[in-house]
């Protein structure tokens, strides 16, 4: 493959970047105890990008590796068709040659589809056995192996082989006409061995759905709200981290300006692609830049953005190594990898104990950001009464202005943890997996609306 790439790179002048990626995947899905999917997927994707000095980018994506050289030639032609107002520069990077394509120790391709089905069938049984009121469920197993080749005309070389595996569970409980659901997932670096021993997770999802069945709606009003680490991670990812991604050429997206105060002194946010053991950690990004741990918000103030080589040059800063593609054939843009909120002080109990009447949000169904309007839909909520967690409740989506919301951040706990669930940043097109990490956080005086049921 290296010869193929090297020959293809010689097909055009200027800066040339050629990325090829092959993916093998398995998926098994059960709807209750009925098998819905047991399948495999073989995909290949390549992207050739050219940047001729004085011109714009040209890019060609393809699905047949034999087309690599043709794609480079066409990308070169496309580059010549544009002439931007401002010349495009690429921030310089250290040229690395990385070979991480050793045989996988736990290769999921060596496990039969029948065994994967058997694993999930057993876990589904665990979920449904948790309570007779579980009326529906959707459970899933997935694994993927990715092999990536990246070469540039500057001499970058990457050959990498990695695998990941995931489990997901959705439980629906029903009684007396009411229905409630609970979700859980785990997505980790590794193979078959990394998803075994997960029966407790499936039982717990079933129990959570049942526990919500007779939960009363929260009375509309203003409350202090404590977010658990997962909910905090999701909220910050979709809002602050999202707004600290430097937009690619041709994409108008708001960027929080450097120096903006977004939250209190206790708030520090970053992205760390070097964190060890996470499925979204990297050595080089999809442009071949060595990745950097980047602080985005320090003590409440925006101090940096995530960059590609082009956006870094435009901002006259060094590239951060966050040029990432969302699919086999897509063009890299600045995207987070392991988004986190740095830990503050105290454990979960201390964050909750000072709340006489409030709401505890664990996990979220979604966080939407429209302009500066944040809408967070809680997945699971409980009341806090006199400093301790009380009954389960149903909570309407929480809407707030971005700056108002973080202005009401009152405490950041010290109980930081990376979240192994399957997370992604809401963005146009395919989703790229992201890991989040955070401690408990507490916001005061958030407006909780009436719940329409």
């Amino acid at each position, binding site marked *: 493959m290296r010869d193929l790439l090297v020959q293809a790179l010689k097909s055009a002048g200027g800066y040339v970047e050629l990325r090829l990626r092959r993916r093998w995947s398995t998926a098994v899905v059960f709807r209750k105890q009925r098998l819905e999917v047991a399948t495999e997927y073989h995909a290949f994707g390549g992207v050739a990008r050219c940047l001729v000095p004085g011109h714009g980018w040209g890019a060609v994506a393809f699905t047949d590796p034999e087309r690599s050289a043709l794609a480079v030639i066409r990308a070169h032609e496309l580059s010549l068709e544009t002439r*931007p107002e401002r010349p495009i520069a690429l921030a310089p990077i250290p040229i690395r040659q990385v070979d991480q394509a050793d045989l996988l120790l736990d290769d999921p391709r060596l496990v039969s589809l029948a065994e994967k089905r058997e694993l999930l069938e057993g876990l589904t049984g665990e979920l449904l056995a948790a309570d007779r009121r579980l009326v529906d469920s959707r459970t899933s197993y997935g694994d993927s192996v990715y092999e990536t080749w990246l070469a540039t005309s500057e001499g970058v070389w990457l050959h990498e082989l990695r695998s990941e595996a995931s489990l997901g569970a959705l439980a629906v409980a029903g009684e007396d006409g009411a229905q409630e659901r609970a979700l859980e997932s785990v997505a980790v670096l590794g193979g078959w061995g990394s998803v075994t021993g997960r029966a407790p997770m499936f039982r717990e999802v079933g129990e959570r759905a049942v526990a919500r069945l007779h939960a009363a709606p929260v009375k509309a009003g203003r409350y202090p709200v404590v977010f658990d680490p997962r909910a905090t991670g999701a909220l910050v990812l979709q809002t602050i981290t999202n707004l600290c991604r430097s937009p690619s050429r041709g994409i108008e997206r708001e960027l929080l300006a450097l120096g903006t105060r977004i939250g209190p002194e206790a708030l520090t946010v970053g992205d760390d692609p070097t964190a060890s053991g996470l499925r979204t950690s990297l050595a080089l990004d999809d442009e071949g830049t060595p990745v950097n741990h980047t602080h985005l918000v320090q003590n409440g103030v925006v101090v940096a953005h995530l960059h590609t080589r082009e956006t870094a040059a435009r901002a006259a800063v060094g590239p951060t190594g966050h040029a990432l593609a969302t699919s086999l054939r897509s063009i890299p843009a600045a995207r987070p990898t392991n988004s986190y909120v740095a830990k503050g002080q105290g454990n979960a109990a201390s964050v909750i104990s000072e709340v006489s009447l409030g709401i505890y949000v664990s996990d979220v169904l979604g966080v939407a950001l429209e302009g500066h*309007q944040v809408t967070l839909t809680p997945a699971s909520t409980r009341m806090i009464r006199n400093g301790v967690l009380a009954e389960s409740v149903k909570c*309407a989506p929480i809407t707030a202005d971005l700056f108002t919301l973080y202005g009401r951040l009152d405490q950041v706990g010290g109980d930081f943890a990376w979240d192994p669930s399957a997370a992604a940043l809401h963005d146009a097109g395919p989703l790229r997996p992201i890991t989040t990490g955070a401690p408990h956080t507490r916001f005061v005086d958030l407006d909780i609306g009436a719940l*329409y049921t």
Partner: protein
Amino acid sequence: MIAGVLADLRSRASQADLVRTRDETISVGLSANRDATISIDQSDAVQIRAFANGRLGWAGGDTASVGAVAESALRSAAASDPAEMFFPAPAALPSVITRSPAAAALTVPDLLDLAGSVADRLRRLDRRVETWAERSVGTVDVGSSRGVLASYDVTVVGLGVSVAGGPGPCHLHVASVPPPDGSALESLVAEVEARFDPEPLDLDELPASARVWFKPRAVRGLLAPLLVRHANGWQAGDRGRRATIDPRLSLVDDPLADNRPGSRPVCDDGIPTQRRTLIRDGQPVAGLLDLRTASRLRLPATGHGLRRGFRPPVAQYSNLVLEVSEPGVTDLARVVGDGLLVSEMEVGPAPNPVRGVFRVAVPWCYRIVGGRIVGRIERAVLAGDVGRLLQRVAAIGADAEWLGAVRVPSLVLDGVGVTLR
């Protein structure tokens, strides 16, 4: 290629079928300062289904890996449960226009001109305008061991605009089989101007429940949960009790409408497509069935099978049309009297598993007083239940328009929950 793969599978599977999709999409984007980005995406993918030893399996991938995909389909069958599957025989295909020679001939400079013409019309000092244009040319081939061998060519041209400088993102786009004509461009520009024209209002409160005029793009947002509810109710055999809406409304799935992005003469299951009324006069009357589900239920498939990439075969809507049984109203602001107008809305994740219960911020929202639009409301949050709201239709607009693969009119709905953030 299809015949060869099916021949190879013949000795190991009693039946097999395959769908192959080839596509080349040229995309151009113009940034606010007219810098262009150009890219081309060429794809060639297959999904293969094999029925062996009474079990059905499927797998997908790129066409260059077709041999491995066929092996995976057989492994998938071996890992699956016994099933029934009735593959269709070849049949005559209906006529529908899915390809435009003018679209297929569009070049990179043509697309740059198209995007540039919209950008020029919308550019103002206080706005950042970004536009994009895209042309897709492709072919869909469907074949089966029962002798189905069908093929159709497709083009889609998309044109989009994103304008910064308002209360929220303003993203609008149009898509059709042929390139958009002058009137389509003018409509797009007029729609953007109409969103920005009214001045923002400084309001302290709004009525808790209001009559709201949902423009076609907002009605499209309301359709998504209605469809989920309809599909769930239909599959559960809940006919007639769920998704009942105003009796003046009917919902039709129409793959045979010419020149729309969802148009097609044959579905990916190899079944000729047909126009199908899903909701007639407010009552659900039919659902969609792909071949696998239909075989399981021993019902006829409806010609809506979709088999692409790594997604399981499913029944998929083609072009959706919300039809009206009476002439539409032209002056909807007067019908509203005192209420709101919403240009665009998306119903996000709902806190209740009965889909369609929503509470969403709507940045493109306007106050109507005395039958006139008096200003823009930037902090409005709407809440309600789509199913119930569509039973409270106060008026239907005469402004039905195609938005990609959906054709809907404006609707004025009563009892929409309103709050200010």
